[in-house]
């Protein structure tokens, strides 16, 4: 593929992508590179606080997100791949914009003034800015003949305060149709996966996950495609069905279509092995 002029963005991987979903991280960086986007990891980033911080301590949750915002170089969009991290970062920015006391605390703690103009985007926001058609026309792509159901989980929801941020409903279907995949409609596209309840209350999460996985199978899809590493893990870990269908990260499929050769280490990390499916479709052979 020919080189495309690079856009540089700050990249916030977050704990899930940095550890349990390394294949998501690697494929994300890879597909962005193919689209001409250079992801520069935010230096010394810390955990966004995840669900736990805002669940029991709002000040710690805000401070953790603020430290990350303070590390972001000005003028460069900050991109997060985890929907939850994105929401925490955006929430903190919204709070800082509207609360003088919070801004004073930010300045005192991090010694830098708050930058209200910092753009914070989910990876979907980047995808939206990329004009895929000319890119595919000039560079070609590997057509992927698969039927899939898109799984957004709770990522398209947001509180009223963040209502003006973009809504990306349908972006996976629109993007992947360009790469010859066929989206199917189903009932569970926006059903929450249960997130952290998976640890303390697997009795609640397992039936939820099984219903989602069963729903995907009954729709006639070959696979589920998701853009959340947490959803991916919960579906894989808690599914107790005999023949669970494989789940891909959105970024893995994009990278495959863009002709990556670096996928060897990705699919072997899935708990539900997607390699037989890929093989049957003549993909990822090398």
């Amino acid at each position, binding site marked *: 593929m020919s080189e495309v002029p690079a856009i540089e963005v700050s990249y916030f991987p977050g*704990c899930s992508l*940095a*550890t*349990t*979903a*390394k294949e998501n991280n690697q494929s994300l960086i890879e597909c962005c590179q193919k689209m001409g986007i250079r992801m520069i990891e935010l230096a*010394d*980033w*810390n*955990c966004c*606080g*995840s*669900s*736990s*911080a*805002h*669940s*029991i*301590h*709002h*000040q*710690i949750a805000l*401070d*953790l997100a603020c*430290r990350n915002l303070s590390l972001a170089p000005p003028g460069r969009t900050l991109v997060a791949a985890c929907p939850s991290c994105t929401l925490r970062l955006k929430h903190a920015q919204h709070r800082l914009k509207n609360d003088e006391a919070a801004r004073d605390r930010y300045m005192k*703690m991090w010694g830098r003034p708050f930058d209200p103009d910092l753009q914070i985007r989910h990876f979907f926001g980047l995808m939206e800015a990329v004009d895929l058609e000319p890119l595919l026309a000039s560079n070609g792509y590997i057509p992927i003949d698969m039927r899939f159901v898109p799984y957004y*989980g*709770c990522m398209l*929801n*947001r*509180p*009223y*305060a963040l209502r003006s941020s973009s809504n990306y409903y349908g972006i996976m279907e629109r993007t992947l149709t360009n790469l010859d995949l066929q989206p199917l409609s189903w009932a569970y596209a*926006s*059903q*929450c996966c*249960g*997130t*952290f*309840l998976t*640890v*303390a*209350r*697997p009795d*609640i999460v397992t039936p*939820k996950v099984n219903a989602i996985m069963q729903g995907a199978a009954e729709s006639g899809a070959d696979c589920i495609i998701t853009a959340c590493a947490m959803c991916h*893990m919960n579906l894989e*870990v808690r599914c107790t069905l005999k023949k669970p269908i494989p789940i891909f990260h959105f970024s893995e499929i994009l990278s495959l279509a863009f002709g990556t050769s670096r996928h060897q280490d990705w699919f*072997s*990390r*899935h*708990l539900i092995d997607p390699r037989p499916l890929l093989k049957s479709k003549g993909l990822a052979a090398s």
Partner: protein
Amino acid sequence: MSERASTIRLNDLDLNFSKEIKRLCGTDFHTCLQCRSCSGGCPFSDHMDYMPNGVMRLVQLGLKAEALTCNTIWICVGCHTCSIQCPMAIDIAAVMDALREKAVSEHVDIREPDILNFHREVLNSIERYGRTHKLEIMLRYKLKTRDLISDWAVGMKMLTKRKLDLTPSKIERIGDMKKIFQE
């Protein structure tokens, strides 16, 4: 819910509680008109003792003990399904956050202690490393809840699939975490 007292005693109402929660969550739950959209959409309402709209009513009325000791506030994962469905634009998930925080700071009887244990282990990990170390969180959680057997197979599978790092990823300026957690 049927086991709960059906009489509301005016003397038990704590309207300061209502104000305090409103200040903490920054959303006006007094506009709730009990349409139950939140409860219809909530994916976990089957496991809650009060439906989300019921919790809004408890807070409006200042029924502090009922609101802080219900299991709903712990089962809620903050997926915001209710928040986007609410016709009055109440950020219901934020109310749940405020109630949990209050339940912890007031040392009331926590209805789902294991969920709180998990949250605490996550925060401990962030305080130590600046990031979450999932293997350690899980091991400490399992020790605390004295349950090392369940999920053993899942844990082993995750280890063999290289989903759990043995050593933590640590931030460089760990002093920043002390600054955040000292208060």
